[in-house]
């Protein structure tokens, strides 16, 4: 009966929530809860809603059980595995996906720019998730040490081994952002 609290939550959600509201990449999205087309099913994960309903396929699904980090998005400021969160739990949440990153003339986030320059990827399947975790890290800590970067990315599986180039890219993006911030002020 280990799943009982979850079941109760879902039943509860169906009873009390008619619709849910998300802010995805700055845009408001309102979904009806139900089993019809375009509706958010009570058992639907955030990763599924992002990919299937909103077409935001930059968020990848690999293990679908919270062990690999491929589906990481930023929810209310924190990097989370979107395959482990039901969309009905997210009412009122602010969500950023890889498609929501980017600013400035190049349209790229400094992390994305640094990943390109360092070729901080091989097959690229893990890359969006890693970038989202790195983004959440730099948002809360603009000057992370190497150990903090490794800690923040420790939930990401990469079998090509892009790790070393990723660490360098994250360091460089952090440096650039600090420099930009200091020249702004």
């Amino acid at each position, binding site marked *: 009966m280990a799943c009982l609290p979850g079941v109760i939550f879902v039943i509860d959600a169906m009873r009390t929530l008619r619709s849910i509201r998300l802010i995805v990449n700055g845009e408001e999205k309102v979904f009806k809860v139900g089993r019809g087309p375009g509706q958010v099913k009570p058992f639907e994960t955030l990763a599924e809603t992002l990919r299937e309903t909103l077409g935001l396929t930059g968020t990848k699904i690999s293990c679908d059980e919270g062990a690999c980090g491929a589906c990481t998005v930023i929810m209310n400021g924190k990097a989370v595995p979107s395959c482990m969160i039901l969309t009905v739990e997210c009412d009122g949440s602010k969500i950023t996906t890889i498609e929501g990153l980017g600013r400035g003339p190049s349209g790229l986030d400094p992390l994305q720019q640094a990943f390109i320059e360092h070729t901080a990827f*091989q097959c690229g399947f893990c890359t969006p998730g890693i970038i989202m975790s790195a983004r959440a890290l730099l948002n809360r800590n603009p000057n992370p040490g190497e150990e903090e970067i490794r800690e923040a990315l420790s939930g990401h599986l*990469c079998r090509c081994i892009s*790790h070393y180039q990723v660490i360098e890219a994250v360091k460089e993006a952090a440096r650039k952002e600090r420099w930009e911030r200091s020249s702004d002020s």
Partner: protein
Amino acid sequence: MGEEFRFIGKKIPRQDALDIVTGRVRFLNDIRLPNMLYGHALRSPYAHALIKKVDKSRALRLKGVKAVLTWEDVPDWKGGSRNTTRILDRKVRFVGDVVALVAAETKRLAIEAARLLKVEYEVLPHVLSPDEAMREGAPLLYDEYPGNILPSGVPQWGGPRSLKSVVMGNVEEGLKEAHAIAEGEFRYEHIPNPIPLESPGAIGLWEEPNRMTIWVSDQAFYKHVEYLRRIVGEEIEIRTFGLPCGGSYGSKSMSWQVQLYAVLLSRATGCPVHFSLTKHEHLATFVLRPSSRIKGKVGMKRDGTVTAISGTWLVDTGYYSQTTQAQVAVGCGEAQLAIRSQNWDLRSLIVCTNRTASGIVRGFGGQELKCSLIPLLCLAMAKLDVDPVDFFKKNFAKPGDGYFWRDGLWYTYRGVDPAPVIEEGARRFGWREKWKGWLRPTSVDGQKRRGVGVGIHGNADVGEDASEAYVRLDWNGTATIFSCLTEHGTGQKTNIARMAAEVLQLSMERMRHAPADSLIGPRERGPGGSRMTYAAGSAVIKAAEDAREKLLILAAPLFGTTPEDLDTKDGMVFQRHKPEKRIPWSSILEGTRTVMGYGRFEPDYSISNCLVTFVEVEVDTETGKVDLLKVFNATNAGRIIDPQSLEGQLNGCLGSAGIDTAIFEETIMDGSTGHILNANLVDYKWRTFLELPEIENVILEIPYPTHRFHAVGVGEIATSPGPLAVWMAVCNAVGQFFYEYPLTPERVLAALKRGGKV
């Protein structure tokens, strides 16, 4: 040497870099076709059983379920190395073998429907180890294979001559010349999984009467056409589209079953069907490394000369073989590349058992063989106090040496002697200071003992198989490459464009790729054996040269000169000695023409790459845990084409069932039922960002003259020398030889206890 290049060796972003970092790359799971259905399989809970009956009724009653297929509903399509494994069979041969296929409107529904199928089995006795499989009277997996022994050799590779073993000289005489003889048995039998992040999958579309179209995110989509043709027959038209590949490491070079499941479900429903494995299915049912065991005897002289090698290489391929014979053939060739000896009697024996099949993984037989064969040589080195670095320097092939390769033919080595590479790696790593002799730790600090080790691997498949390419020049000063190649992580799609750009002197922005469609591009076998730089690269280079030549022939009358007098750069043609007059391609092609170049690379097995990996480990004698502290890879790339991707490839030694197969990567099977116990990404152990060792890649550029830019590929072999190096380092730290992998805390503690060191 001394040539200046615009693109070769330069730090240039990959052409797909922007799409990767923005999430815009469309992998298989990101594709939506109209009316697409989703497939799922019901799999056997038994390692060996006959299917008596499948009741589909409850599943078919579920709204949204479109088809259920069992062995009775499908054609007699058979795959595997000898075409004896039926796509769906009345008999299931491992836990996870497919019993039935379901197509439904959603994946979730397909999974639910599969659960509603009721199957009656007649459970059969099973064999889960090669020892059980070869026992007299053991149950047979296939009537065709008495004793569960598969025939060796690959018919397509030289017919009956195809390499199955290494037999030459006189082992008895060789043993007499030896100063030391070592005997033993070593096992690399823990069937690790490379686990690309993107699970294997395909979208299949069947169109009556006889056309199948398949979208795959695999490593070698054109080869699928050739492989599937052997299974489904010539009368069926096959077309494949190659999508970006979310990791493969060899494993997704073949996925005929997944592809045909999708096609069969499409044939049954009239809709395109997406069939992808869940991660659990991927780990429990898709291909693993072959299991490898050597029992043998070697003779050695004091100077490290190997006087004889004899033994049996026992390979467990699981429930069937798609490429195991090929891996044995290449492994046998690679053994001769790494170990010079006049006298060999190394025989292979391939056995099938009731477990998930083995298949292609980086190292392709050679890693598995090295991990079990070289430890046997180490026993002899230890008796004679031979330093393994000196041994490898002496024994890796030198130009003029020879070897039997996969087709059973004798090749004379035209490659580069890697001795300077080994020496440079050893120097940078500090080998001479750290090596204290066999079974001696480098240092002891309380309960921590450090040890060092070295491993080697080289592969003459760098020029494996034929490749073809077209390069089309357009009037607007762009070049389009037609190659049946998809990007699988090595950056090779950009790199073939770099090579063509260098020939055509066009900027990378002007280099395009035609869609990866088997109907559009010419024959390309795809990545494998580090062949992209030399084989595929040379085909593209030749196609670019051919196109350039044709362009200059068209341009010559406009200059009133001969084509040889002309050159081209940045979309302009000019005379070499009078570069002031420049005519753009648009004028030469009059805005209406294209120029098409064709290039073909013929197989060349006479050169090899080589990678040496040095490691330092620390063993905790209280807990038995092994920590990998340092990894130094040394190789010769001939000429570096793409420094960043090469660095990444070599760092890849830590992933995809590579170096860590020595200490913690393994697939754990219940030895009585055949169930895989760690088929998820928590229980299958993998290295995280928190436990990265120090890594350094020492890359030399001693030219390979047979490539236009003197380059050779090394990506595939990155994983292969490492496990042996770690094995050696742990042996030295602990003071005991180990006879099986991985070197888990339990095994390390047991060895320490045996040695009286705790």
